[in-house]
């Protein structure tokens, strides 16, 4: 029997009080694709970073091709033939592709030789694996798909025969993802070993040979992909039976609450993020916006929430919003009945170093209820906070705990409680269940649907197609700052939405990946 390409034994790792990995064991056979699946925060990235020498494990042993290997730093991992494409790319933005590839793998103290040698090798590699990139382009001018190729080339250039990819498809369209998987198949045929991290069941089922499941820092199971089902994996992931659909009544839309006409946004560095968006949301309706991350959906929420200026015409309940002037801030939006659950609760929705009660007033701190003369009425805020914490079942129910000391799901409950309890006319929600466990997901979904049923308008942004499909009453697909089309959830499927997400509107025809790639490259070229 051949030795496993990788074997980990008893790996544990803590970050301060958080134990990210607990006594983990795993074996991966050479020439296979091994999937690792688990919820957000399960410890997948941590485990792989340990294998790549980025973090140091507290305890445990690593065996590479049967030999016990110390991996104190990434240098050692590279020497052992391991390459890793991180979830957040590790590229130097203002260097060229070539410079990024030779960085750390130069031969000789002078650059000239290394660069020309790399150029030839790069040409070979890119032809061999269909990984075309312009070696002289600056990273900051490339789209994410291209950047990912650079990362893969970086690993191949270092002659990695064990390749780790951490959530490589999070930023890709379904078609791009398919292209990536074909590349991985090719690499596998060459005899390389691949570890693929994801939390998407479909990808696991389609591409891997074996799969390990992680939950809360522990490895709960390793199975052959052919011998399992998505349902089983899902249960292993969350530790109990899961419900994959949301229960809800059909919508009964009323008059229009939000109307957006030709909305445009240019960001700080002059890039057009929204190129003229028009849409509307009615009372008693949830409009879902889906798209690959980075196509303008975040900016859409931010403009509507008053966090950045824009151009165009937006009305709420028939009254126009000020998009650029003195009134284009989040404070004014709240007064106009718009509540906003931001995409990033830790960076935006909460002040992590504030107490829970302080966070309950966040954004509404100028509310008359919270004032006492020129001072703030902290007692009133605390009273309100306690009520909300009780109603939304935030645990622990302690308003003197700092936000950072709550778990992700409970942090999200605090934000949801604050925003929903304002009884807004329009609710903007971004990624409501990112990093939240299934139990909390159900609760949060119920709350959103309840708000809709109370006759309010909801604009939902999510990168999870499942969430969009199950929660929305209407779906708009965004690509490169434009709305590609609207569909009813009952009349569409993932394939059609995926093509729209890649900017292809004639969804009836067949489309090759190259075509999609070209379309995307064209779009990013314009954006850059």
């Amino acid at each position, binding site marked *: 029997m051949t030795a496993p390409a990788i074997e980990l034994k008893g790996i544990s790792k*803590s970050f*301060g*009080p*958080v*134990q990210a990995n607990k006594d983990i064991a795993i074996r991966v056979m050479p020439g296979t694709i091994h999937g690792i699946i688990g919820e957000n925060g399960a410890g997948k990235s941590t485990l792989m970073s340990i294998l790549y020498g980025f973090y140091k494990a507290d305890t445990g042993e690593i065996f590479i091709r049967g030999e016990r290997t110390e991996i104190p730093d990434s240098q050692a991992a590279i020497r052992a033939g391991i390459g890793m494409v991180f979830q957040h790319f590790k590229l130097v933005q203002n260097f060229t592709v070539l410079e990024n590839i030779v960085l750390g793998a130069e031969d000789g103290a002078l650059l000239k030789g290394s660069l020309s040698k790399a150029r030839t090798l790069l040409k070979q590699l890119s032809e061999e694996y269909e990984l075309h990139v312009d070696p002289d382009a600056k990273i900051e001018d490339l789209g994410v798909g291209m950047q990912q190729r650079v990362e893969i080339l970086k690993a191949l250039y270092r002659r990695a025969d064990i390749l780790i990819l951490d959530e490589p498809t999070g930023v890709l369209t379904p078609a791009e993802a398919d292209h990536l998987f074909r590349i991985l198949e090719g690499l596998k045929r060459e005899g390389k070993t691949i570890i693929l991290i994801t939390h998407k069941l479909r990808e696991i089922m389609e591409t891997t040979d074996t799969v390990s499941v992680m939950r809360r820092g522990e490895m709960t199971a390793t199975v052959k992909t052919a011998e399992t089902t998505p349902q089983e994996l899902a249960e292993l992931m969350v530790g109990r039976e899961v419900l994959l659909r949301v229960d809800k009544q059909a919508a009964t839309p009323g008059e229009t609450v939000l109307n957006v006409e030709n909305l445009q946004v240019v960001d700080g560095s002059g890039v057009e993020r929204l190129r003229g968006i028009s849409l509307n949301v009615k009372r008693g309706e949830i409009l879902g916006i889906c798209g690959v991350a980075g196509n303008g959906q975040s900016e859409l929420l931010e403009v509507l*929430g*008053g*966090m*950045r200026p824009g151009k165009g015409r937006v009305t709420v309940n028939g009254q126009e919003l000020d998009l650029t002037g003195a009134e284009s*801030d*989040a*404070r*004014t*939006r*709240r007064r106009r009945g718009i509540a*906003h659950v*931001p995409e*990033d609760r830790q*960076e*935006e*929705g*909460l*002040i*992590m*170093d*504030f107490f829970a009660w*302080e966070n309950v*007033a*966040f*954004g509404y*701190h*100028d509310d008359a209820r919270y*004032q006492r003369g*020129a*001072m*703030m009425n*902290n007692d009133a805020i605390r009273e309100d906070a306690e009520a909300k914490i009780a109603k939304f079942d935030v*645990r*622990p129910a302690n308003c003197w705990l*700092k936000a950072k*000391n709550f*778990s992700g*799901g*409970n942090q999200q409950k605090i934000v949801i409680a604050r925003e929903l309890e304002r009884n807004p006319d329009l609710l903007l929600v971004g990624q409501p269940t990112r990093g939240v466990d299934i139990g909390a997901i159900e609760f949060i979904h119920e709350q959103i649907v309840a708000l809709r049923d109370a006759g309010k308008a909801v604009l939902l942004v999510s990168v999870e197609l499942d969430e969009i499909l199950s929660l929305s009453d209407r779906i708009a697909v965004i690509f490169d700052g434009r709305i590609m089309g609207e569909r009813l959830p009952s009349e569409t499927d993932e394939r059609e939405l995926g093509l729209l997400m890649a900017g292809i509107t004639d969804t009836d025809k067949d489309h090759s990946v190259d075509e999609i790639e070209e379309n995307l490259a064209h779009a990013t070229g314009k954006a850059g």
Partner: protein
Amino acid sequence: MDKLPKWADVALIPLINLILALIVSGLVVALIGQDPFEALAIMVNGAVGSTYGWGYTLFYATNFIFTGLAVAIAFHARLFNIGGEGQAQLGSLGVALVCLMVPWPHWLIALPVAILGGGLFGAAWAAIPAYLQATRGSHIVITTIMFNFIASALLVYLLVSALKAPGMAPESARFVEGSHLPTAREVLGAIGIDFARTPMNVSFIVALLACWGLWLLLWRTRLGYEIRAFGHSDKAAVYAGINPVRITMITMLISGALAGLMAINAVMGEQERLLQDNVLGAGFVGIAVALMGRSHPVGVFIAAVLFGALYQGGAELEFETSIPREMIVVIQALVILFTGALDGMVRSPLEKAFLRFRRQPDKPGVPAE
């Protein structure tokens, strides 16, 4: 869970840092062939051993409270105002103009106007760096450093031209009698307490009020809430409808004004005329004070008194021994180094120790849901 209990964060760590700084200072004293314990005794005695010592200690402390609060409030908005020196210089110009322009009948009338003058001028000097930081992202540390130099050039220019009093020295005319602030000796003398002749004056009370006012502002008003929120996360601030430009400007204006207020103590209270170099590094001491005081007004007050004692004790040290006054600068540098820059050296082992200590009693490290 916070990694450290609050008391360790606000008291234990600064204390360990301070002790480290003092140990190294003692080594320096020993290295130049003096007895560190004797030096310490002289300093302590000189600083707090008499009403004379206390007077000077609190006089210096008053300066440091103002500059320390200035740095502290900026820290709350995550702004590093290293321009206290220049803002205080401009404040001194404001105070001097107030005291020179009007024949004040009584200090009680002069003081509020001088506070306004010093505050406004100090704030004005912070305004441009603040504006550039807020709207153009120019690093406030660099711009405020530059403004320190520009302030000092401006003062030199004015003191050899428009404001120069007759005579050779580059200084302004004496302020009018009516702008003289009562000293501690005069105030306490009136109620029959004998206090040495020192420049400590009613500005000390103003400084205490400033501490209290700043505490109120930061933790009891909407503005303070917004400043703190902005300091923790500017993205979140925008989400909450807090205007970053506005908060940056307001915070820096308050910060500059506080630094400028130092002049009512130093210029109006002691020198009673405008000198070219009247801040004497207090703007920089403010950094050490704010760091040690963990940017809390009470902490700033305690740290300022400590530094006041250090300055007064250091002056005595120079009288009594051959240790030059620069010893104070060394101690100050070490305090900044240990409390500010080398904080992690103490903090991370301590965090680990607390973590281990907490893990032991069987319960898991993280609260269950």
